[in-house]
């Protein structure tokens, strides 16, 4: 694997039972860069994203061929510890899904699962994660109130803080702002800009403008295949493939 890459998929095929969803996808994710995965619904981008931390393991009949390398280790190898993998490759979903606990406990949850016991250390880590998700100042006076009382945008940033608390190398985001208003979306996009200094981000989005705004690299998927990937500015100004051109200019999809 390229040492400048945080994650690297090679010749990846993925099947839901007999139906093949991904075909021979090879894609590397440079460290400290945001990569956007775009494409029409059903093109395989979310399936591919979930392959990157083995979230598809939970689906009956799902199977994967090819390799995904994280620090030269194949994440699909039998000896791979999935809990440890998901600590290193965190995930934020489309719909905010805070636990029915306090704001503090939501962020501390992953730390405790990973064995943290020292209260001061946990408290520091919670504050740091909330700061990195750009919401500490909004919630610092109500850390011990229910997370369910937060607005949708705050809940989503809390989920980002929860993922960040365990200090992952890679953060996977599956349409993280699709249910949020423009202000909440802007706050998340701004926080991504700062977060990439510490980790690698891979984001699935249906919002072309969001992909163009936040990502350094963009990969276009169509019908389970990777059609084109490259520098975001180039892809959105002069794509090489006609399918990419037609999709990003709204001529199909």
């Amino acid at each position, binding site marked *: 694997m390229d040492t400048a890459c945080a994650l690297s998929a090679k010749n990846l095929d993925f099947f839901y039972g007999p139906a093949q969803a991904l075909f021979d996808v090879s894609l590397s994710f440079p460290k400290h860069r945001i990569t956007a995965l775009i494409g029409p619904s059903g093109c395989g981008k979310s399936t591919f994203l979930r392959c990157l931390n083995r979230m598809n393991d939970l689906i009956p009949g799902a199977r994967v061929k090819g390799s995904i390398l994280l620090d030269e280790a194949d994440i699909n190898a039998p000896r791979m510890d999935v809990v440890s993998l998901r600590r290193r490759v965190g995930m934020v979903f489309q719909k905010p899904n805070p636990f029915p606990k306090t704001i503090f406990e939501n962020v501390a949850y992953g730390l405790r699962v990973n064995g943290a016991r020292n209260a001061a250390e946990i408290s520091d880590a919670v504050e740091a994660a909330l700061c990195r998700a750009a919401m500490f100042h909004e919630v610092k006076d109500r850390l011990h109130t229910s997370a369910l009382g937060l607005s949708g945008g705050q809940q989503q940033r809390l989920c980002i803080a929860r993922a960040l608390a365990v200090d992952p190398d890679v953060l996977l985001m599956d349409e993280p702002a699709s249910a949020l208003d423009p202000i909440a979306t802007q706050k998340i996009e701004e926080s991504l800009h700062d977060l990439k200094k510490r980790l690698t981000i891979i984001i699935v989005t249906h919002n072309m403008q969001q992909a163009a705004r936040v990502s350094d690299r963009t990969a276009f998927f169509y019908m389970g295949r990777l059609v084109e990937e490259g520098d975001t500015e180039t892809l*959105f100004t*002069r794509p090489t*493939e006609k399918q990419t051109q*037609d999709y990003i200019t709204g001529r*199909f999809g």
Partner: protein
Amino acid sequence: MLHKETQLQQCLTQLRTRLLVMSAAVGIALDEALAALVSGNMGRAVAVVDGDAAINSLENEIDEMALALLARHQPVARDLRLVVAALRMVIDLERIGDEAVSIAERVLILQGKPPQDVTLAMAGLMRTAKESLKTAVAAFKDADVRAALGIIENDDECVQKEVLALHRMMDHFCTDAGGAHNSGAQAGMHGILICRSLNRICRRAANMAEHTCFIAEGVNIKHVRVTTDQNASGRGGP
């Protein structure tokens, strides 16, 4: 896979159409200004001066259309390139319109009587300017990169014709400068300024050709020496 024209595509078509309307208006202004110069018809010259307001309002209209398109649709790829090129192209077209007005005004200053040898001296340059604009507009209309590059490659032709025209003008200036009321000197000076206008028109047409290449290929060729052969091996992206 492809569907009916989206709202974005309709707006882009409108933008392109208005650009072509403006191109036609500017082309007519140039033709009329040069016809007024050659024929000494002051009425035609006045019409060119008066017609400039319509060209200016087309510039404003296209500017507003392009801004609205960017704000409302956030176009990308080739669509974005068309909008950006349109914003640049209207400036070139408006300036060509201004040069046509400048030529028409000189016809009026000379009371519709520019000496025939002055107009003859710049006949080649007039043809080149008209031809450059016509080809640049056609290349944009047909997305013809090869034709656009042809204009850029022929940049030297315009310079040579201007030099030739200026030499002839100087001859006229030297032989007739001492004539009654110094009319030869005055005509020569206006002739030189008209040559400058024609040269600028050729340059603006070359700019338009560059925009056409940018729309089609996504490559900025401003200030780069390119040939049609080089372009044939270009990236060829959509």
